[in-house]
């Protein structure tokens, strides 16, 4: 193969100072137009070792899809350096696409009016997959994704969950090194979601496929990825283990206390503030890293305490707080 550099497994996907700037023209009067620059991706760097599963999160328009499009070679970066499996995705897109699989939750890569089996046969021709490997891969996917009995059904007649599983199969028939999943569980019911997640875990463990996943569903991430990358406004906000998000997001735990009766908001508790009251129940927020014991004793000393509980920070709150900054 051409252009293949020696790839150390740590930098299987290697992104440095990646940028993408779109020029937007807007009509600002009769025949007059103003142009402005939108920095969709603004200097992002990260590396993904072979065989890792990474979750990409960020609000709509954060630059996730733009980053994925550059990683897969269908968008040219405006700046920075980018290597996937040692090759420049844009320059060697046609070579790279043989080694990647792509799944979109909101689009299908299958042919609308063909049965699944015919779609797969076309994929086999396209990627020139040897017969034996094709059979083994198809069998494996059919079994694990429970596609039995669906192979003869035209794609347009499949339900969303069935189509999604069909799409994942299509993306894996040629044994890709990297699998990109763009919102793979969007719109799926609980059972379908679980099935897709189970399958992805299994794929990663058994085949060693590197997986990059974008999603708005944080439970996907909690279930699948040890590592998460948070992007907002085209910048990297966080890159690390999921649990570490709490520290970065300056997250807070909540002490919920039930008093004997309705009282004015609790005051004078050192290291905590009352964020909400509702009848005899009050909520006190305090830093996630701090201990709850001194707070409890302070409240118990000054107020008629009946019951209490501590609420751990919600990952969604943490991320919402990061976005808001």
């Amino acid at each position, binding site marked *: 193969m051409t252009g293949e550099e020696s790839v150390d497994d740590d930098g299987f996907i290697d992104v440095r100072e990646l940028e993408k700037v779109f020029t937007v023209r807007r009509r600002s009067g009769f025949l007059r137009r103003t142009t402005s620059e939108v920095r969709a991706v603004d200097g992002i760097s990260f590396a993904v070792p072979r065989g890792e599963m990474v979750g990409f999160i960020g609000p709509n328009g954060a630059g996730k899809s733009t980053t994925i499009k550059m990683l897969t070679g*269908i968008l040219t970066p405006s700046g920075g350096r980018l290597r996937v499996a040692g090759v420049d995705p844009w320059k060697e897109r046609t070579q790279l696409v043989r080694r990647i699989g792509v799944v*979109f939750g909101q689009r299908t890569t299958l*042919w609308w009016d063909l049965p699944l089996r015919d779609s797969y046969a076309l994929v086999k021709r396209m990627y020139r997959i040897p017969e034996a490997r094709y059979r083994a891969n198809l069998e494996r996917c059919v079994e694990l994704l429970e596609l039995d009995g669906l192979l003869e059904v035209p794609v347009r007649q499949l339900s969303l969950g069935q189509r999604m599983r069909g799409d994942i199969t299509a993306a894996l028939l040629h044994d890709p090194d990297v699998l990109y999943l763009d919102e793979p569980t969007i719109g799926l019911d609980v059972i379908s979601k679980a099935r897709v997640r189970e399958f992805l875990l299994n794929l990663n463990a058994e085949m060693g496929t590197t997986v990059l996943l974008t999603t708005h569903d944080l439970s996907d991430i909690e279930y699948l990825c040890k590592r998460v990358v948070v992007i907002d406004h085209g910048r990297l906000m966080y890159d690390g283990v999921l649990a570490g998000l709490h520290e970065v997001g300056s997250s807070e735990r909540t002490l919920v206390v039930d008093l004997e009766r309705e009282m004015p908001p609790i005051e004078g508790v050192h290291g905590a503030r009352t964020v909400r009251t509702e009848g005899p129940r009050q909520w006190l927020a305090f830093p996630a890293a701090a201990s709850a014991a001194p707070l409890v004793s302070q409240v118990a000393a000054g107020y008629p305490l009946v019951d209490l509980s501590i609420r751990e920070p919600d990952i969604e709150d943490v991320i919402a707080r990061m976005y808001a900054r």
Partner: protein
Amino acid sequence: MRLPRLYFAVAGSGFRRYATYRMATAAGVFTNTIFGFILAYTFIALWNERPQLGGYDQSQALTFVWIGQALLASAALMGGGFQDEFQERIRTGDVAIDLYRPIDLQMWWLASDLGRAAFHLVGRGVVPLVVGAFAFELALPGSLLVWALFLLSVFLGVVVSFALRYLFALCGFWLLDASGLGALSMLLSLFFSGMMLPLNVFPGALGEIVRWLPWAATLQVPADVLLGVRQGGAGIAGAFGFQSVWALVLLGCGRLLQKVATRRVVVQGG
């Protein structure tokens, strides 16, 4: 190189896809036949006034009408075919999926459009021509060789027609809505292929120009091959040469434009 097998498979699936729509085919055959009668009676009136107009006698003119109806769907003389589908994929951003595939975008669509054209030639071409031949006195050749040359010329014509429509469709990468261009492309094709009036009837300088435009390769040239207007070694070589040069030039332009389009593509939607 095993790649062409893929494109044969794509052409095959293009053929099968259109073959499943039987009612649409029947309706198309009916329309072509009616349209053929209307044009035929118009041409009879015209050639009665001006015999030998454009060098055709009346039966040649009528033959031209029915060849036009036979090729209307196959050579996509009124647009359509892959063009609508491709434009829709550009508009919705689904074209991104095509770019993720180890295929040549242009070859892919060419193969699928050739499959469609092959079906339309059989499914929508044969019946109108046969009806026309029974209803009027047509100047159809008796020689199998001429028919074979005609089919080859039709094939080249479809490639030119594809290349033209591909160029128009690619403009969708820049325009948010390419339907206006689609209408323009249909209008140009309708007039400059000879569909409304054979190109050798166009007067003076306009006639000279339109006979050299690529649209001439889609209907006028195949018709002239069948009618024996272009015959003999030189005549046939001239016809095929004209079609092949346009096919190569336009496919080349298509590749260039495709390169620019995919370079600056903003694939629409998340």
